[in-house]
């Protein structure tokens, strides 16, 4: 199993959720994060002072999937999340040794 961690633009969430559904993903966990990277942040104005904010709001998706699904999941995200402009985000794949469903105690791939 792998944990696919995808950091995407917030307004792409709906499209990515749909694409993941089609790729066979049945569950995921989402959090609101802030990202820093090539995307340059932006200038804000507060009480007569301009300043730069280099943190950009992003949504992070954690999706644990069986090894054989990783490719499809990554592809699905790539397609759905891409706008082509800087800051589209990243996908990281991390090994998972075990998964357990709390409700039933099931373990392994059937748990996800």
């Amino acid at each position, binding site marked *: 199993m792998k944990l696919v961690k995808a950091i995407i633009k917030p307004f792409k969430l709906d499209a990515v959720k749909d694409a993941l559904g089609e790729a066979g993903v049945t569950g995921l966990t989402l959090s609101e994060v802030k990202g820093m990277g090539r995307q340059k942040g932006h200038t804000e104005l*507060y009480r007569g002072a301009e*300043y*730069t904010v280099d943190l950009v709001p992003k949504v992070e998706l954690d999706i644990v999937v069986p090894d054989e699904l990783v490719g499809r999941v990554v592809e699905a995200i790539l397609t759905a999340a891409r706008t082509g402009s800087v800051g589209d985000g990243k996908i990281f794949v991390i090994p998972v040794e075990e998964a357990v469903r709390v409700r039933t105690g099931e373990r392994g791939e059937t748990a996800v």
Partner: protein
Amino acid sequence: MTVASIALLLADAAPPLKLEDVAKSVADNTTAINFVWTLVAGFLVMFMQAGFAMVETGFTRAKNAAHTVTMNFMVYGLAMLAYWVAGFAIQAGGVGPLSTLGGYDQMNRAFTIHVAGHDWGLFGMRGFFLTGVAYNASVFAYFLFQMVFMDTTATIPTGALAERWKFSAFCVFSLFVGGLIYPVFANWGWGGGWLSQLGANAGLGNGYVDFAGSGVVHLTGGTIALVSCFLLGARKGKFNKDGSPNAIPGHDIPMAMYGTFILCFGWFGFNAGSTLAGSDVRIAVIATNTMLAGAAGGISAMIYVWSKYGKPDPSMLANGTLAGLVAITAPCAFVSAPSAVVIGLVAGVIVCVAVVIVERKLKLDDPVGAISVHGFNGAWGLLSVGLFADGTYGAGTNNVTGAVTGLLYGGYGQFAAQSIGVLTNLLWVGSSTFVAWKITGLITKGHRVSVETEEMGLDTPEMGVPAYPAQEGAPEAAMPVLQKVAG
């Protein structure tokens, strides 16, 4: 022995009390009572701006909250200055002497046309910048009260256009509302213009009767919202390819309800203040009817939604309450308490149905329900004068002898006058909105923010700052100032 001789007789006393002087003081006191009442009521109406700001901001998304609240904030000043420059003069030029405010009568100067044997007023021509004869306490009191009403109208469309309207376009368009669109219709309804003359000149009841502005204020706001909402288009994501709508919940429901309470509070000033006279005890009837109709609107909306969807929907309750208030605004002075409750109950249902019509039939995207609340129920309020006015009040209104009387009490002409008022509002306000919108678009190079701005939220790109900066940038970080400015 004449009064003069009594006066004489009193004159040689010390202190020389004269009946005329005392009577004059009594009249001054009455005037003072009316000034105090009108001003306090005007203050309450001004405070409604805060209520609108909370309702509209609460009903939009966090990423657009600074934009929404700032539109609500600036519309107050922008429309006010336009009204001060031109709007007030256009509206008030045929208003006649300000009888409750000391009787000052120097403001009259209306442009009229002569049709079918009568002079009909079209707009006023005196009082620009509040200078000259308008530099007078009575006129200033009248100005203040009328200004805050206009500003209510000006703030209504901001809700319908929220989350996608360019701030620059908003600024320019608001000048048209305060300087022209509103004042012309207000002249026709309240400034001695032709709608108000439909009774005296054409025998239709007391002419157009709109006690505190279901029509002049709310329907006008609603019509502007309707037309401009159509022209601006829906928010990205509101409608699917197949035309089916999506719900886009606002970000702060409690704030919207606090705002609604502020509106309930300010509405007392709105309606009861419209006597311009604390010396008219009818103010108590007006205030009570207002209160009852608002409550009834909230309750019927709750029952309607609850029975339809299985849950009381807080956002519709709030809209229902406002609907009741909008509807009672025209008839508040002329109807009994049970009628007020009925008018409110109907309004609460109208708003629920209207929200669905606007969204699913007209395919319009009105984030806060401005069209349903102010438009539909503004019209309902105007018509309900023609139905429920019970003939106990308003004798002499618009220079017609009899009291205001609706259909249910045998007054047929009144209903006709009210209906003409509704149609006229749609025509004038609708068409002038269209023109003003197009002109504004030329000046500000369009009305709509870019797709990127809309996706990201309007706050930072349009206003320069998010509404809740800590939720955006790093909570702890003090941000270095970019550009240094020489003091």
